[in-house]
């Protein structure tokens, strides 16, 4: 890997201070190539906190695609079942979001929220803002569905549900 540890990614990362290992540190761990350090990376919360905002990629003098690496590391962590506790609500949210998209073709907010809450059992989280959101028309009771939901199914079948793709 081309990283020469200048630290510009960490300097610009909005979540670095919350991460177990900030991006440049993570790159160094990977650079060593040892299994031990790979386990540290997979079990860290860094890979789950990453927002894929691409600030690091935009600034990196060596043009290393850290967000893409984070994607890979997340997949790998799930596969090896080395999940940091912080990852649980994050994975729950991602799954709920994808469920909504798979079923309706769009984001169904109430469906997403309920699904997320049942997954995490964190029923009271952000409950206070629900009424004002409802009044502002941000929460619809019934989902809006797209016309061609079959093609959405097909996309899912070809990507996420296709084991080969997942492994890649």
């Amino acid at each position, binding site marked *: 890997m081309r990283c*020469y*540890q*200048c*630290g*510009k*990614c*960490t*300097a*610009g*990362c909005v979540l*670095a*201070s919350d991460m177990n*290992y*900030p*991006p*440049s*540190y993570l790159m160094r761990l990977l650079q060593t190539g040892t299994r031990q350090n790979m386990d540290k990376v997979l079990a860290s919360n860094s890979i789950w906190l990453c927002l894929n905002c691409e*600030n690091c990629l935009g*600034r*990196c*003098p*060596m*043009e290393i695609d850290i967000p893409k690496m984070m994607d890979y590391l997340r997949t790998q962590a799930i596969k090896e079942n080395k999940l940091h506790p912080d990852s649980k609500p994050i994975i729950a949210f991602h799954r709920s979001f994808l469920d909504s998209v798979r079923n309706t073709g769009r984001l169904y907010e109430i469906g997403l929220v309920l699904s997320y809450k049942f997954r995490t059992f964190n029923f009271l989280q952000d409950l206070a803002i629900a009424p004002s959101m409802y009044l502002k028309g941000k929460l619809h009771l019934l989902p809006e569905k797209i016309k061609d939901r079959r093609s959405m199914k097909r996309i899912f079948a070809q990507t996420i549900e296709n084991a080969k793709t997942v492994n890649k």
Partner: protein
Amino acid sequence: MSKIGVFICHCGENISATVDVERVAREIGGMEGVAHAIDYKYMCSDPGQTFIKEAVKKYGLDGVVVGACSPRMHEPTFRRACAEAGLNPYLCEMANLREHCSWVHEKSEETTEKAIDLVKMMVEKVKKNKPLDSIKVPVTKRALVIGGGIAGIQASLDIANTGHKVILVERDPSIGGHMSQLSETFPTLDCSQCILTPRMVEVAQHPNIKLYTYAELESLEGFIGNFKAKIRLKAKSVNYSTCTGCGACIQKCPVKKIPSEFNAGLGTRTAIYVPFPQAVPNKPVIDRVNCNYYKRGACKICEKTCQVGSIEWDKEDEIITEEVGAVVLATGFDVKGTDFFPEYGYGQYKDVLTGLQFERLASASGPTFGEIRRPSDGAIPKKIVFIACAGSRDPAKGIPYCSKICCMYTAKHAMLYQHKVHDGESTVFYMDIRAGGKNYEEFVRRAIEEDTVNYVRGRVARVYEKNGKLIVKGVDTLLGGEQVEIEADMVVLATAGVANCGSEQLAQKLHVSYDPYHFFAEAHPKLKPVETNTAGIFLAGACQAPKDIPETVGMASGAAVKVAALFSNDELVREPVVAVVNRLAPPLYSTCVGCFMCETACPYNAIEHEEIKGRDGSLIRTIARVNQGLCQGCGTCVAFCRSKSIDIQGYTNEQVYAEVMSLLND
């Protein structure tokens, strides 16, 4: 029948490891016209050369083929050996069995067969070789130095002190270059101008140096020892022979708000100006782009103030031609501006400066007379951040190389700041500290230990303005990537050193090669650092790559010695690989029909008209003739000649044909 000697070299194991050299010698030995063929471990060694010499005498050889390395390596060696044995050196040819065969192929039957073919081609060529005499050309013992920075100044003085004439051409109105802009120099902190200006004056007063300021090279023709340089003397609009340099015109000039180049844009200057007080020559020029008279046709205040009537409004650029024997390129470098950095504010924040601008702030002759003050409000910055590697070592920005000088000047800047602002706090963000050089590392340690400069290892991701402060978002990678945020009053970027603008065009004018970043390329990275690939043109200073003052001065002196060595010859010996127009017995005289297609094709203006006259002086025919001094042997004329009357000596059509046919006749 020819008697050709063939000598196959093992080159240690370089050739023999993949080529069956004994078989090559054996098979070539059986060729028609080959009188002698052997192989030996090192042909270039003394015993190897002795084999050649003895064989020439013993077998009365009339041609020699050495199958060894590239002719660029050892052709002179073997030709000299032949000459010592009494054989015309141009009857000796080399077959490149190393670079063209053994190094690029695996060991196999085919590799050996290719080697045989290569030697066979050369044997057939040598059969057609004719004895040639080398060409002698005179040397003009006058040097042209392009660029009047410290490199050009040093090279000019050194050449001039060997007793040869020097023409020094400088683009700006004064010599001095970047060094005159610097405040103090690392690692001794001596004043840059104090050590430079005596040399500038010496240049101006030296009897052997002719100085052209405000001038640029227009074109360069010719070859080593015999260049013709056209120099454009840009119109200064001031008559230097009468101007006394009193400066009254400068004080009265109404156009006062032009950003001063000398102050790196921090100060202002007038339209008629002397770049800086110690300028050489200390006489003004008019900047026609900004002058009211040239812009609107009215003003002429300077003319009214001038007591000696030196203003020349209608003066035009003048082009002069100078004959020189050698050229030293010393055009220096430039630094990237702050506008190159989107993450550091695209140059829109006034208090984000380049290193060069900070030099001007710290300099006693600068816009603040040596006080460190913010350009935005004139306040003294209490917190200052220096960012090293700004642009350098950044492949994403297209500058992957290290600019070399920034580590040292950043340490110097931080030190100067601490010396001038005692309660100030300075931070340096760095990636690595590259302080290789005498007393350099000690200097950096001094900045860290004695002057308490805060060195943080990490790059800065972003600089932005908030409530009049510059927020610097960096990182300390030595703390495992802990983010560092500093509210600074001033940020100094050690911006990358890049090739000077126009260096690419200049290189093309001079036929000098350059690297992808437009720095001029040296002939060999280690053994020929001041030569270029064009004979007679030498390099000095940062036009070759970013370098500091001691290195630049050393290189300039090196280039000067190369020039002096060249000038120690009264004439130069050139390879006779030039074009010739054939001549035949009367009444034909030549197959040349005098169409002069060759003349239009020749890039070196080497084709002349030759008039063939009868005994009574009447003109019989006009044919082409090649000036052997100018011809570079490129062969373009040969391709253009419709009657096949012109040929390159040593590479005639007949010879090349023989080479090709040797392959086809197998």
